């Protein structure tokens, strides 16, 4: 009897557990469906919602609300258990044996006929698998959910909705922090790649400030003050650090310095693994040839050692180490300078925006700005009014690290042609010069020559070709 009793207990427990799982799944699907439905209907009104309430947040919020509602309204009850067991009886034609057995299991004393019911129910339920008997059934919302999910994704992707000023204002208010965060991220990445310790520290401080602002712990005003203070400190850091020895003072271009560092690294790899024991023995012709193929490094070596062929390998190694440190320090200095400039511009723009918003609210800030400054703060975009969205976006300097702003090239053979563009080109030289391109290619060729990818017989030919490119450039 114990065996049949256990069987009945186990099978009923399995059945109820399985049905409960199915109920939970259905509830979650229903919740997702209705959350998607409501979120889709709310998408056009997204513009009126707070900025932090993104479409994903709205969906998540409604999902939680509907889940809570459905889980409460469809919570498992005794009548559900009874109905489930009744279905089992009906399915297996057990004539209410399981229903009766379930009640008998809950009683302390059992009559002989009740024990017989338990035994018969146990025997018949022995081979029953609730999961196989009551398979999952899918309702209409299950089939509609993928469709509405795709619809919702498309709507979010194509930014369907009314874009209100409210959201843009909020977006503008937070843009200082966001831009600062983006800039600090970029600087951190660059500093880590290039080993710029000072820049990295400053970038981390900037990120910390930006995070505080974005989380609402730091007001816009306090952020501006911090930005100004930080710009000052960065300026002091720049003035305190002097240019290191062994580097040409004309090298103030970040790109050139990067190339120089790459050339130093490439040449170091080309040096023999074992350093020579004696100094001043002179360099191998092969090394001299390689050095000549690296224009920035060879220039620096010529500055330091006018007679390079008499220079010993040990002296060269020491010089390379010293040069590497100097280049890194110079890059750090240049990055700090870039940071300082950005911080100053950001603080200035943010202050201008604050005053503009105060002016719009009818609260002028007398004496704070001169007429010229006010004109600057209003912006100069044609056809825009002060205080409009376009103006605020222009007022803040947008950071685009290392992005080329002008393209050079020929469209076809023959005379050069130009394309008129409806954008204002920034002044100054092109960021990517021809020399840099040649140096890049030459450096890459050097790396490939050092490897085994190129056959020995062709290495000299390739080296001569790139040397000829360098000479042609010098002749120009």
């Amino acid at each position, binding site marked *: *009897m114990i065996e049949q009793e256990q069987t009945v207990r186990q099978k009923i427990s399995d059945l109820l557990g399985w049905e409960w799982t199915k109920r939970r799944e259905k509830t979650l699907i229903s919740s997702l469906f209705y959350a998607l439905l409501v979120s889709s209907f709310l998408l056009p009104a997204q513009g009126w919602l707070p900025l932090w309430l993104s479409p994903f947040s709205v969906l998540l919020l409604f999902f939680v609300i509907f889940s809570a509602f459905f889980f409460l309204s469809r919570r498992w009850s005794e009548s559900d258990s009874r109905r489930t067991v009744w279905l089992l009886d009906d399915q297996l034609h057990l*004539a209410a044996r399981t229903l*009766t057995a379930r009640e008998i299991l809950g009683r302390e004393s059992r009559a002989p006929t009740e*024990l017989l019911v338990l035994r018969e129910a146990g025997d018949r339920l022995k081979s029953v698998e609730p999961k196989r008997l009551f398979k999952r059934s899918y309702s209409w919302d299950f089939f509609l959910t993928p469709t509405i999910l795709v619809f919702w994704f498309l709507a979010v992707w194509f930014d369907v909705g009314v874009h209100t000023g409210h959201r843009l204002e909020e977006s503008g208010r937070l843009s200082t922090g966001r831009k600062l965060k983006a800039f600090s991220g970029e600087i951190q990445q660059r500093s880590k790649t290039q080993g710029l310790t000072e820049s990295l520290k400053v970038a981390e401080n900037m990120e910390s400030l930006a995070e505080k602002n974005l989380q609402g712990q730091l007001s816009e005003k306090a952020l501006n003050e911090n930005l100004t203070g930080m710009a000052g400190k960065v300026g002091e850091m720049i003035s305190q650090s002097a240019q290191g020895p062994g580097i040409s003072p004309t090298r103030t271009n970040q790109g050139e310095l990067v190339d120089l560092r790459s050339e130093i690294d490439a040449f170091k790899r080309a040096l023999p693994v074992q350093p020579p024991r004696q100094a001043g023995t002179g360099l191998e012709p092969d090394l001299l040839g390689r050095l000549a193929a690296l224009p920035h490094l060879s220039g620096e070596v010529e500055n330091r050692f006018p007679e390079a062929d008499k220079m010993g390998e040990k002296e060269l190694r020491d010089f390379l180490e010293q040069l590497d440190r100097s280049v890194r320090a110079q890059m750090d200095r240049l990055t700090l300078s870039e940071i300082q400039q950005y911080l100053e511009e950001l603080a200035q723009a943010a202050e201008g925006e604050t005053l503009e918003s105060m002016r719009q609210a009818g609260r002028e800030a007398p004496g704070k700005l001169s007429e010229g400054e006010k004109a600057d703060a209003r912006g100069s975009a044609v056809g825009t009014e002060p205080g409009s969205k376009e103006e605020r976006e222009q007022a803040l300097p947008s950071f685009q690290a290392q992005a080329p702003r002008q393209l050079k090239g020929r469209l076809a053979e023959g005379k050069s042609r130009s394309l008129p563009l409806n954008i204002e080109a920034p002044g100054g030289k092109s960021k990517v010069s021809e020399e840099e391109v040649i140096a890049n290619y030459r450096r890459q060729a050097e790396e490939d020559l050092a490897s085994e990818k190129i056959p020995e017989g062709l290495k000299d030919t390739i080296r001569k070709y790139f040397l000829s490119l360098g000479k042609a450039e010098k002749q120009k």
Partner: protein
Amino acid sequence: MEALEEIQERMTGCRRAFEELKAEMGRAVVGHEDLIEHVFIALVCGGHCLLEGVPGLGKTLMVRSLGEILNLSFSRIQFTPDLMPADITGTNILTEDGLGKKVFDFQRGPIFAHVVLADEINRATPKTQSALLEAMQEQSVTVGGKLHRLESPFMVLATQNPIEMEGTYPLPEAQIDRFFFKLLLRYPSHAELARIADLTTAAPSLPLREVLDGEGVLRIRRWVREVPIAEAVKDFAVRLVLSTHPQGENSLPMAQKYIQYGSSPRGLQSLILAAKARALLSGRPNVSFEDIRAVALPSLRHRVILNLEADAGGVSAETVLAEALERVAEVL
């Protein structure tokens, strides 16, 4: 406590006895299998049946055959308008004892039998009909201030003719409610009619064999009450009875429209007890929803009092109850 095997054996014995009874009855009565089943259920539940059908459908034959098969005493009372209560219960008559002294001696009436056939009960006056009340309910009669017990098992099978209403006295509701079942006899089918012709016009067959005695019936009566019923099944029976109440919360629209008075609590008792008996006779240890459905009509049809609108519309109690059986959910 009895061993499970004994219980199982008991169940099997009940089923076998019932199968034998049906087979033996089939030798004398053609068709009416469901009717025979219901009469036997009423017998093992200690109830009485009201049989309704046109003359010549074998009502009397069936009751007499039942008495023979069960080896129980059988009596028949033909109800007529001039029938007196004393003609049923018996009376005290003045006799002389052995010493020559005049004494009243109780002369038992035909009610003193195990199975009593009250033929055309609606032809007797209400006064005479009510003489059956005490016997049916208390299983005793009081004559001259003296109580006389009736032997167990005791069962009254009353018949009434639905088509001849002239000169009849419809049974009062209180008396109708005391009948466990009301059973309707239908006309035999073509094949059944042909077989009736064969049986009644050929040489008489062997007498019916006794398959169960009075003791056996009383034993089954005890076992019927031990059959367990699940709360859900009981709840279904309760909701079914409540659905016949026109003023009830769960009443059906049809019940509200056509029923004047719904079923009494006796209807529920009859429903559950009959379902238990049906389960036992099927060799099943518990009551199922199907048992309730199977005995719902005979248990409730005479307890539902229809209104004039139902009479005018030709709506019968069976129609309303069939609607209730269809609408009321087995499990909520």
